[in-house]
């Protein structure tokens, strides 16, 4: 699993779960909030992405994450552990 692949999966889930993003390019240095996600949307994006990537990171460890890039790093570290 590469970081690029993880970012691709997260970005696709952001586009699928949020309104009006069909033609957007997702910038990993931004947060999901920047794309209009509320807390329920973020749970949905994270859950869908983890299922697709077949990993399970405890939610309690995601509390301090701000950007999509940081989320991808966390997923990668977990996948490699």
């Amino acid at each position, binding site marked *: 699993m590469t970081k690029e692949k993880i970012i691709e999966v997260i970005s696709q889930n952001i586009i699928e779960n949020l309104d009006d993003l069909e033609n957007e390019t997702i910038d990993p240095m931004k947060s999901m909030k920047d794309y209009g996600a*509320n*807390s*329920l949307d973020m749970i949905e994006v994270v859950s869908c992405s983890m299922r697709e990537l077949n990993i399970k990171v*405890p*939610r309690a460890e995601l509390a301090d994450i701000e950007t999509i890039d940081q989320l991808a790093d966390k997923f990668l570290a977990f996948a490699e552990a």
Partner: protein
Amino acid sequence: MADNILNYSLADFHYNDNADVLSPPDDFNEWINNPKVKEVFSFFEQELLDAPRVSTEILSNLDGKKRHIINLTSYNYLGLSTHPEVIQAAVEAVQKYGLSSSGAPLLSGTLDIHTELASKIAAFKQKEDCLLYSSGFGGNVGAIQGIMRKGDFLVMDEKCHRSLVDGGTLSGAKMLFFAHNDMDSLQMMLEKCKGKRVLVVVEGVYSMDGDLAKMPEIVEICEQYKAGIYIDEAHSTLMFGENGRGVAEHFGVEDKVGITFGTMSKSFGGVGGFVCANKSLIKYLKGYSSPWNFSCAPSPAVSGGLIKALEVATRDSSLRDKMWENTRFMKKSLLAMNLDLGDTESQVIPIIIGASGEKLLKYAAGMQTRGLFLQPVDFPAVPAHARRFRMSVSSQLTQAEMDETLNIIEDVIVKGEKS
């Protein structure tokens, strides 16, 4: 999962990929049956063997023993659930009407005591009309779901109760959450839905932190954006304001709040919920609020008791005065111990321990063994870095019980933090 089992929580098992739809996720079973997780869950569903007074008895899950305890977890803020006049009124109602209303309110469930209670609550809240719900959770779900529609916008404080969020999800309205009590964030969200039908939802007292909604600022911003206001006064009705009407009265903005909600299970000492608003909106809700028109009307015993509870709590201010006297004493004493109480301004006093779940549970067990029932509140109910105890201060607390409580907290938490 086995090497970091305690890092997982109920937040991690919402989705279920088990092919057998009648089974929870496989990894949930592995997690919930792990001895360490079982130990965590042993704090929950401990049986009270007597009424939820400050002084009561539990069957401890920790060692299987019956234990007399000082109970600072139940939200019986004014002690009304066991007030002799309230009990007598409930007994008289059950003797006259029986156990159940035996029908939905629209068809046959409305008893004369329901109409009397709703009318007295509306008059107390200074609103035109009131709708009673059998459950507080159902009341919030039902009011939001009954009013809002797809295409509308709900702008909610991020710390709003689950019932409000679930009502929003059911309504189909777009939900935007603003940072807790942050007026810049509120304004930013309202900018996003300019020109739409918008309802701003806040709580009088936030249930996990005990702080208050900044109502004067919220009202000003909502007027600017022509947004309606819904306030959930579950933890503030009968306690805040000169007449006990809540946080909106406390800040002198009641006439600017369109919809006020409250529960009957906290200061009232019963169970259920109520929504107060103008007559036409209440009439509309009766047609569209599913938890009202598809639920059995509230139990006669509870409704009879609640009429008396409202009378007892409002005929003078003695109960809330005593509750505030106890709250001031507890807060001052806990602050003197250098404990982190967050920004509490109410009878809900959090003692914030921090990120360590293990420490939280160690302290909870230590306090319970000494006779103090102060339940831990863990992630995901509160942020993972701010796990806590949530103290509910009651008017029933005696000075001796407060002194003993403080002794136990000092011995277990304060000394524990130093060691």
